[in-house]
């Protein structure tokens, strides 16, 4: 049956600032080719892709950007996709650069470059996925390749052409302050949960897997005698390093948990503990405690902290 309907236009939100408050992940890819004579061509301009449910869940336990796969399927992607429809090729070798956007909307990024050697025969490519499996399975993301008009298209990967897929994964942290009122052993502590190192390229880049307490590189969760700092910084004052333990990820929860433990010998600040900082790999955060938490050398302080729930960034 045919009906007549008005042609529609996609109403696209171009105001990226609307994507805050955050807690979401996103991905973008582009594909370029290089012929033996050195000529380069853009086969797919930078375009957003879809993060799968499986990819979101995987982030809680392991690396999600291990490899890139190309295929010839044309089925529109869904969040339930786990594999390419029609696998063609995969590249496991990848080079990585990382960084962070330094103004709002903030996001940490990781750019992966997957270089595919010439296939030896022309290949039609219409779908792409990034993930951690072999043969186009276990996908963090899947997408149809689109032309400049945004329509799905098929590109021809020439027999003698080297193909480079550049994939950028992003994590948008929460930017806003979130007040808390937390009872710890019968005492109510108020304060603010605030991002930390917002825009910090070394601290808040997109990390391949989400975990909480043990930190990212040299950065590790810390207790402070002072209070929290700016969202681009961390708390101030005398510091103490608690024991940091990542909790087991609960499948489907999309949240990383961890435990900070300060035994009797540390963090017994004269004025109490005024703040702490959680060096979560998804996005770092800091928290103030009012009144300060008076810890004595007979106390063990245990803080059960989490990353917040992550999802897809709209």
């Amino acid at each position: 049956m045919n009906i007549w309907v008005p042609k529609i236009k996609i109403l696209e939100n171009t105001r990226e600032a609307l994507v805050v408050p955050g807690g979401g992940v996103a991905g973008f890819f582009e594909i370029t080719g290089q012929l033996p004579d050195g000529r380069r061509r853009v086969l797919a301009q930078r375009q957003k892709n879809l993060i799968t449910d499986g990819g979101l869940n995987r982030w809680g336990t392991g690396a999600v950007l291990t490899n890139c796969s190309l295929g010839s399927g044309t089925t529109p992607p869904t969040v339930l996709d786990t594999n390419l429809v029609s696998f063609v090729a995969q590249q496991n070798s990848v080079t990585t650069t990382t960084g962070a956007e330094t103004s709002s909307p903030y996001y940490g990024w990781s750019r992966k470059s997957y270089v595919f050697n010439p296939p030896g025969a022309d290949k039609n490519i219409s779908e792409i996925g990034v993930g951690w499996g072999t043969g186009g399975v276990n996908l963090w993301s899947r997408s149809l390749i689109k032309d400049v008009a945004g329509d799905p298209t098929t590109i021809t990967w020439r027999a003698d052409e080297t193909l480079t897929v550049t994939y950028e994964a992003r994590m948008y942290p929460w930017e806003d302050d979130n007040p808390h009122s937390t009872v710890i052993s019968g005492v109510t502590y108020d304060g603010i949960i605030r991002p930390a190192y917002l825009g910090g390229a070394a601290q808040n880049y997109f990390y391949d897997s989400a975990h909480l307490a043990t930190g990212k590189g040299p950065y590790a969760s810390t207790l402070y005698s002072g209070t929290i700092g700016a969202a681009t910084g961390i708390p101030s004052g005398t510091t103490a390093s608690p024991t940091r333990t990542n909790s087991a990820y609960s499948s489907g929860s999309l949240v990383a948990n961890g435990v900070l433990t300060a035994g009797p010998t540390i963090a017994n600040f004269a004025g109490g503990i005024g703040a702490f900082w959680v060096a979560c790999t998804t996005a770092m955060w800091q928290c103030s405690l009012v009144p300060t938490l008076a810890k004595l050398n007979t106390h063990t302080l245990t803080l059960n902290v989490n990353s917040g729930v992550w999802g897809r960034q709209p």
Partner: protein
Amino acid sequence: MSYSCSRITTPMYPVDLDERAASGVPAFSGLVWVVENEHAETEVPSFSGTHEQTLFQGVYDLEKPEALVAVPSPFSGTHVKTLFAVGYDLEKPEALVAAPSFFGTHVQTLFPISYNRETAHATTSPPSFTGSLV
């Protein structure tokens, strides 16, 4: 089941994109959606039902007719032959796509329905903690 279909004569009005975007999911009423005042013949894939309030089981993103977009439930309607088409660009979940493909001979209700196929994991929450001092 059969429908007699004719060229849609639905009035079309522009909307303020920024206003719409700022408000997120639109709360609108009336026969309003941004369209280009041109028509495209589109084959509707399938629909089910026996009588009034028959709703399409799927709609096409008219700019990407190969991309079948499921329409969520529940639906509500106020009158017969109310058809609508609301979908998301599968690749651009932030971009609500609405197609005023409703037609009929009587009341034509446009539903402020948004379908976010990513709803299940589009909602995030900020960090939190608990503690003990013993």
